[in-house]
Each structure stands twice: as structure tokens, then as C-alpha cells.
């Protein structure tokens, strides 16, 4: 396992170097994504200021929500960006080269690409969480909770990505299907947490675990709710294990193809 992780770190380093070779594109991606996210937060904050507090959610909570979601999205898409390309790899047949690799298949695919724009998400996420911490006068316990919940949120993002991309093995040219499925998970991670109540809250916690990526971590940090913390952690672990199972089952259905491709 140590060899696998050490190779994964090395592969990430090489991917960053490879992306950085195309300097302009690399920098534009990072700056572009940070600006994009900032515009998004301005819209939400103005919305909350006009409408007022909804189900206990304030403008500061929205900043926290975007902090968790952006940071975990950014981490997943920087260290495991390749998983998002599984549908392309499968439909073009370039998945073959991962199958002949001596490393863990999922780690090898995950580290096959690096998304420069994900750095923009990480920077934005960290800034948002910093601002949120300041606005809520964060305590030591809340800081510990926040750090732990960033890990949980990242785990659930990764699980959702792996689970969705496992569908790549079931359909021919599954790119559109997997994109739509991931959007189904991603879009609610950025929504106002107060808008999910009753059945929608249940569905988007257990069946589509979007709330675990942002809204529930904010509520746990704000309310210091250990009960919710346990539920969120268990659901994230279950989703992660389930996604690994789905991926392994999907690989067994891989049929390769002979489209011509070039490069990584």
C-alpha cells in the first residue's frame, strides 16, 4: 500500500509538472475558476441578504457551504481528476493502458490527469472557510470538526465520482450519462442548505449524498452536533465502500475498443 501511495504522489507531481508546461493555460484555469466561484458566492450572499434567514441559514453559512463544497471538489479534482475521464478512457479504449499497469487500477486512473482549475477551487474553498471561521468566531472544537468534515466531504465527493463513473462500463459512450449523473450530485452541493427539508433532506443525504459535501458539515460546525457528525461519517464511509464495489464490478464488464488516441 505504501508503494501504491508513493507512486500516486509521484504521479500527481508529474501531472502538475505536465500541466504547468502549458503555462498560460495553467494560470488561466486557476485564475478563471477563482473568479467564477467568487461571482457565484456574491449572487448567493445578495440572495440571502434580500430574503433573510431561511431555516436558520444565514449569509455566513452560505460562505461556509461554498467553502466545504469547493475545497473538497478541488481536492478530488486535483488528486483524482483522472476518474472524471473514465467514460472517455473507456469509450476510446485508452483504458487498456491502465489495465496493463502494475499499480492499483483506481489509483492509476485517478492520478492519470491533473486539473489546474481545481487549484482555483481549493484556494477559493480555503478562503471561504477562513472567512466563515472569522464570521462565526470559531472555537477550537469547531476547528477540529471543520478539519474532520473537510475529509468526510472529500470522501463523499470522491465516492460520488467513482460511483457515477462506474456507469462508463455499462453503456457505449457513457460520457453524457455520467456527466448528467454527476451534475445530479454536484448541483445540490452548492444549494442553500435551508431549502432541503423533510423528504428532500432525506433523499439528498442518503440516496444522493450531496448534503454531506457542504450543507450538513456547515450545520455540524455551527451547531456542534455530534449526532449529525456520526450519521454523516457513516454514510460517507458506506458510499465510499459502495463506490469501490461498483467500480470493481464495472471493470469486469470492460470490453475495450480500437479508437485511435494519442497521449495521456
Amino acid at each position: 500500500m505504501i508503494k501504491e501511495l508513493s507512486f500516486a504522489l509521484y504521479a500527481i507531481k508529474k501531472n502538475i509538472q505536465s500541466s504547468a508546461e502549458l503555462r498560460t493555460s495553467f494560470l488561466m484555469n486557476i485564475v478563471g475558476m477563482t473568479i467564477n466561484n467568487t461571482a457565484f458566492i456574491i449572487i448567493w450572499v445578495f440572495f440571502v441578504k434580500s430574503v433573510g434567514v431561511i431555516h436558520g441559514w444565514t449569509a455566513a453559512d452560505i460562505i461556509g457551504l461554498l467553502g466545504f463544497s469547493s475545497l473538497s471538489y478541488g481536492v478530488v479534482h486535483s488528486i483524482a481528476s483522472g476518474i472524471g475521464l473514465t467514460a472517455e478512457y473507456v469509450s476510446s479504449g485508452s483504458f487498456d493502458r491502465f489495465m496493463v499497469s502494475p499499480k492499483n487500477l483506481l489509483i492509476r486512473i485517478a492520478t492519470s490527469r491533473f486539473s489546474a482549475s481545481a487549484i482555483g477551487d481549493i484556494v477559493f474553498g480555503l478562503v471561504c472557510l477562513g472567512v466563515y471561521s472569522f464570521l462565526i468566531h470559531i472555537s477550537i472544537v469547531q476547528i477540529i470538526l471543520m478539519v474532520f468534515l473537510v475529509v468526510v466531504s472529500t470522501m463523499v465527493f470522491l465516492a460520488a465520482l467513482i460511483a457515477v463513473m462506474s456507469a462508463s462500463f455499462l453503456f457505449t459512450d457513457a460520457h453524457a450519462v455520467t456527466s448528467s449523473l454527476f451534475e445530479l450530485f454536484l448541483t445540490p452541493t452548492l444549494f442553500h442548505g435551508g431549502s432541503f427539508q423533510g423528504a428532500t433532506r432525506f433523499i439528498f443525504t442518503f440516496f444522493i449524498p450531496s448534503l454531506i459535501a457542504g450543507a450538513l458539515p456547515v450545520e455540524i460546525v455551527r451547531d456542534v452536533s455530534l449526532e449529525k457528525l456520526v450519521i454523516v461519517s457513516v454514510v460517507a464511509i458506506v458510499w465510499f465502500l459502495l463506490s469501490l464495489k461498483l467500480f470493481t464490478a464495472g471493470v469486469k464488464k470492460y470490453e475495450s475498443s480500437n479508437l485511435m488516441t494519442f497521449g495521456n
Partner: protein
Amino acid sequence: MDQDSIVVSSLSKSFSFPIKNPSVGWIKNLFNPEIKEITAVDDISFSVKSGERVAFIGPNGAGKSTTIKMLTGILFPTSGEIRVLGLDPSNDRKKLAYKIGTVFGQRSQLLPNLPLTDSLEFFGVMYDLSDREIRHRIKELSELFDLGSFIDQPVRKLSLGQRMRAEVVVSLIHKPKIIFLDEPTIGLDVVAKKSFRDLLLKINKEENTTIFLTSHDVGDIESLCERTIVINHGTLVKDLPTQELARTFVKEKNIDITPNTTFSVFPELPEGLKYAVKSKDKITVIIDISKIGVQEALRKLLDVFMVDDINVYDTDLETIIRNIYESNPAR
């Protein structure tokens, strides 16, 4: 050369896919389509000795790539058994990867934006080689494959010939016992092809690497492989030494005649002989050796033509292979 590197027993692979039935509506075709199953590889068995150079050939869609993908662990067989270096590729995929190298002519394994050295180092690390081993192996392969002039260039700036050489070097970085090559010379010019084949022969000789190659290029088969396995419609058609391929399947010989007279109407030829080329300066006649012997054919031709020069030669390997393919029509 005594140990078996590859043992394949009763190997089959089927694929199924939906097909459109024009006699029913699009809704039925969308939600309940007919499923067609094709058998890409049908009950094949063969073995390859350590250090052998084997061409695995067949027309398009014969099952070559499917077989090579099962041998390397990319595809799971429907039935049958495979042992590559004593391992089952389906269950021991990672272990096997440490012992084999693969080159797929249609795709690259290299890191396109970085210098070639980075790709070599990357694969060295992937195969758990130490820094010292990686440096030593890069130096060794760089000299052997003459990479010096372009090893520091980004991969996307390499010519196709340079890139293919680099692909082979990457696949040899961990000293594999077998190298599988699927259409490795596709798109290369004649000079690059020759240099590529020479390098593979060298690596086979110096490191006793088993070579298992699929190619449509007869030159690859003739100059590189001592044994040829022919597959068509998923079944093994022939398995014999490449030299014997010509001897066993030569049904025709060619005779080039330089006539010293000109013809306005070319004379009829006896049974077993037919014209391939009819021109003022050169006549080529094909002898069907199942119907007429070479000596008899020459005698009859010399009765008909006054000649300045005559040349008898075998049918080329490409024609022989085409004949084998055509003698096994679709089932």
C-alpha cells in the same frame, strides 16, 4: 527456449450488443432491442516458448487484438484457460504487468507535454525500480535505441518513428520477459520500420525477450518472426515456422520473361499457366504447380516465346498470406 512463456487452452471470447430490427418500431428497438452475440475468439489453443518471436496474424476482425488483450489481462475470457509466465492474466493482472511489456501502435503511453526522459522515469517508478536502476536502464536503452538526439524533447514534438521507438523503450524499462506488440509499425516509413525491427531483434537476442506481435505488415513477419500463427474468424488456421509458411502454401510460382519478339496478340497458354503481366518488354506467367511442374512449364513457354532473359521465383509472402485468408471464408 524450452520453457513455455504462454499457454492458451480452448480460449473463447464472445461479445454481445443490441442490433436494430427494421421490422419493429423504434420504441421496441430502444427499450427491448434484439441482442446479437458474436464469437470473436473461438476455442483456440497454442503455446509459445520463452525467447520465441511469434507473429499472430489474421485479416481485420479475425480476433488478433482480442486474443492479445486477453493475454495481457485487459479482457476477461468467456471460457478457456490462459497462463502467461505461469500466471492467469484475469486474476493476477498486477503481478503479470511487472513481467510483460505492451506496445499498442494506435495509442501512446507517454506523457505528451514532458520530455521523453520524464516518461521513462515515470514508468521506472511505476515498476518500482530504484533511482539507480532507472538511471542505469535509461542509459542502457537510450544507447541501444539511439534516443540521444531526442530524449530531452517533449513527447508531442517527436516524429512518429521516434515516438514508436520511445513506446518500445518505455515498455522495456522493467526488463519484461515478454513484449506484446499490437500493430507496432502502423504509420511508420520504410526506414523507421527497418530500424524498429532491427531493435526488436536486438532486444530478443540480448535479453531473450519473447516477442508476440500482431501486424498486417508482411515485412514485420518476414524479418522479425520465426513462427507464424494465423487466426481467421476467431479460430486458428495455421501455426508453423514462418519459412515453412512459404514452402507449405506455395501453390504458384512466377516466371518473368523478357521476350525478344513483340506480340500484337499474345499466344494461348497451356493448362496450369496464366498471364499476370502482358507487355512489350516483360511477360509474367503464373504457374499453378498443382497442375504443371516447373520444368514442364519452362519447356512449354520456351516453345512459345523466343527469350532474352527468364527468371523463375516464388510467390511473395503477402500473396501466400492472402491466399490463406481467402481459403478460410466467413462462416
